[in-house]
């Protein structure tokens, strides 16, 4: 599980872990808690091109359907098949085993720091 203070964030309640030209993306613990029991995760296909800010997948809980936004421009390098098979991983370990997609990118846009993100959620 990643250290939440070292991750970067979006206002759409996603976290981004950058390693070289690859970014791992998931939803925050705050978002997972608000969604409640996650029952289904739909992720983009490996190799598909993503444009920052567009909807690229869905996270469905017993309460609502949340959308997964691409945080950056890039290409899907890998998706987390484990979370597709066991969506509850999003609840049990949102910053670790509950990661969703890995994106290869060229330029990283400005993202939020942990402090900036928690200012949004108020937690």
């Amino acid at each position, binding site marked *: 599980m990643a250290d939440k203070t070292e991750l970067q964030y979006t206002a759409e309640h996603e976290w981004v872990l950058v390693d070289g030209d690859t970014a791992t993306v998931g939803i925050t613990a705050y978002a997972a808690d608000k969604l409640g*029991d996650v029952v289904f995760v*739909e992720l983009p296909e490996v190799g598909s091109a993503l444009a920052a800010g567009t909807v690229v997948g869905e996270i469905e809980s017993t309460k609502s359907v949340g959308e997964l936004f691409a945080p950056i421009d890039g290409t899907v390098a890998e998706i987390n098949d484990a979370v597709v098979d066991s969506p509850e991983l999003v609840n049990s370990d949102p910053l670790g085993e509950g990661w969703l997609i890995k994106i290869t990118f060229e330029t990283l846009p400005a993202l939020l720091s942990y402090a900036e993100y928690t200012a949004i959620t108020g937690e």
Partner: protein
Amino acid sequence: MSQPFTQRHIGTDADAQSRMLAVLGQDSVESLVNAAVPASIQVEQFRTRGDSTLPPAATEREAIQELRGLADKNTVKRSMIGLGYYDTITPAVIKRNVLENPSWYTAYTPYQPEISQGRLEAIINFQTMVADLTGMATANGSMLDESTAVVEGMLLARRASKSPSNRFIVDADALPQTHALLGNRAHALGIELTVLPLDENTTAEDLGDYFGIFVQYPGASGRVWNPAGVIALAHENKALAIVAADLLALALIVSPGELGADVAVGTSQRFGVPMGFGGPHAGYLAVRKGLERQMPGRLVGVSVDAAGHPAYRLSLQVREQHIRRDKATSNICTAQVLLAVMAGMYAVYHGPDGLKKIAGAVAWHADRLAGYLEDLDIELVHADFFDTLQARVPGRAQAVVDNARDLGVNLWLVDQDTVGVSVDETTTHTDIHRVAQAFGGPESRNFAFVANSNSRLRDDLARTSDYLTHAVFNTHRSETSMMRYLKRLADYDYALDRGMIPLGSCTMKLNAATEMEAVTWPEFGGLHPFAPRADVEGYLELIRQLETWLTDVTGYDTVSLQPNAGSQGELAGLLAIRGFHLANGDVDRTVCLIPSSAHGTNAASAVLAGMRVVVVACDELGNVDLDDLNAKIALHAETLAALMITYPSTHGVYEHEVGTICAAVHAAGGQVYVDGANLNALLGFARFGDFGGDVSHLNLHKTFCIPHGGGGPGVGPVAAKAHLAPFLPGHPLAQDDEHYLLGSTGTETVVHGGGPVSAAPYGSPSILPISWAYVRMMGADGLKQATGAAVLAANYVAKQLSGHYPVLYAGDNGLVAHECILDLRPLTAATGVTVDDVAKRLVDYGFHAPTMSFPVAGTLMVEPTESEDLGEIDRFIEAMIGIKAEADAVAAGTWPADDNPLRNAPHTAQSVIEGEWTHPYDRETAVYPVRTLIRNKYWAPVRRIDNAYGDRNLVCACPPPEAFE
């Protein structure tokens, strides 16, 4: 002298009402409602008292006699018209024990699964039957009709297809009503339709680029062909293939699933549901594996309860429009549960062998008829068919159809040279002979004994795969067994025949027996929707009267009864607004303003009408924020199409500023859509059309007593001012497209010229006698008294519970409308007891829960309706106070937060009898929290159901019997 019907319909008598008024400190019901409803919108401001055009109230006996007179004006001939509607034999055991049984027809949509296991099982039988026959992976719990199911299939294809094309290809041999519906709905969404003749020689070049293709199988002309090649071409083009298939034909021919279809749609009407001049019937939609989560409508799945036993529930509810709002891809809510139950039970009763025999007899009769016609040297248009054949009689078609009518048979005039004939379950050899006679055959015939049954079906399309192998379809062959199965399922459920269903915004009022009487009369059940006008005069008169009455009570000018549900009424109304703007050249007026407190279906309907949703903020009372409204109007002044507003508001409050709101929208060139969901709080006191509405839908299944049927049928008429009349839904096959314009002498009429939103011209006519009888027996005064009693009951509940739960919203003078919202959030914060806990604990007390978390999360919305008597209302209040005391005991630490009567509710008999009792409260507290329950107890058959488990492990067909051991 019989008691006036109003006194049967309204639960509280004068004595009870005076006691309730005393609690509220009000002098009379009239003064209470006058204190709650803003004076500026009251009907007296707009029309003279006594101006109603409704006839004075009839007694129950008089209403039945009038209905009998209308029925006698209908003529039921043998219908061999086909086109998706076939005569059928409703097994009497199903008619008496389902269709005529309040345990089935008065139930609500099964959102509370613990008290709905009976109809959930019945719906899963339907789903299993459809999935088996169509060869698809998963079927939903019904659609509104076949043609709307095709539209939903098209929308599904657009969402799921990876093709960038905007084009949808339609089989030229589709049903005429399906062509019309597709055209209307695709136009609103900018989807390009191409109609093409499809056959086994169709090539990729013929088709071009497209995201989906629709095939009718067998075709509207009766043609049976193999669409596997066309389906394969679609898949090469990344398009989805939607196949409308006849369920009875699928007993004999290869299923759409085996042919590679992605989506199968159709109707289950001919499985024991009378034609009813067009409806209601259960349409179906089924998908291949991988598309389950793209399906519209409701879907029953299997999960587990707190004891680990299998239990049914609605799956994937979050995909429905009420949560997805403007991101929803369908606006379907209510479906056709009662009819789906009937069709599923038809399959349970007949089983696979019985169905095969029925289908075989149909094919055999069609083959016999073909033989007789061939003997007359009459050419058949297609050589391969199941039940429908087209005969070529150059220049003679009208004469043949006329001859047949003289012999008591309705055939279908395809064109001047072609006649269509459809055979069904009820067809006899005599019928076949008469048809042949109409074509010029002999007047009498010695029927030859034919040893081997035969058909005109191709051998290479003969079905070899099994279906309906589950035990439920192979057990109940005797009527005794069937009767007991239906009784057992009914006993699992909580419907209005057990007690109050205080669901806010659902108006679960009485569905009186007299209102239901005519539904099963053959003069109303046996008519084909495209029967000649001369056969349906009684229906047309009833429809005209009901249209006029609904127009009168809503302050509009004209009404269309075509929409089959509230959602479809919304769509029809918004399409009328769209048509109006387009006709005025205002092509850019596409913005639909919707308050944040609106029901999610509003937004979904707007999107499907080709509009863009802009949300208007609401204040802390749930009223439209006037500053935000004016800002949004200013921002979108050039593009404003409409405002959708619910009145009284979804929070159950009579908003004071509604007149101002409507005027502001009109000033900017927009139209006002008033959602009629809460009309039960207004009828007789104020009218939408008076205070600014241009168009509304009404829910006849709420305000006008059509029973909810466990989740349908519904009827959602759309009422409008005269300027929108030309854009209300019409139908290419309507017997009469002229409708009354009220406010005139009664002879002025207007043509509803918009595209259709339902497969049948008048939607679901066979249940219209219910609302007709209600209005006829209540009269204008009775309807007003009902509203008063409903508002009184809601305010009484609010007052009596206000010392125990905060009542969230109130309007003028601290009064609510016909429902009240109890805020459980402080209780949850203090005790950990949730809305779910309270709702499920109410089951132990013998109640259906109120509406949960709508319109505000963490609350319960209570609507007692006018039909409950004071004793039942007080019993509910007693239960809610008892539950509050139990929650207080949890807060005080008497019971732990995770082990108390609320958290463990509902308690089954097994849970208090079996094994050692380890809970910190006693068994009597668990199941008899009040003593009256000892003699009158509803036992939930399952414990609390795990929602997440069922959505993660999607199983939507009957589980094997061993699962319940």
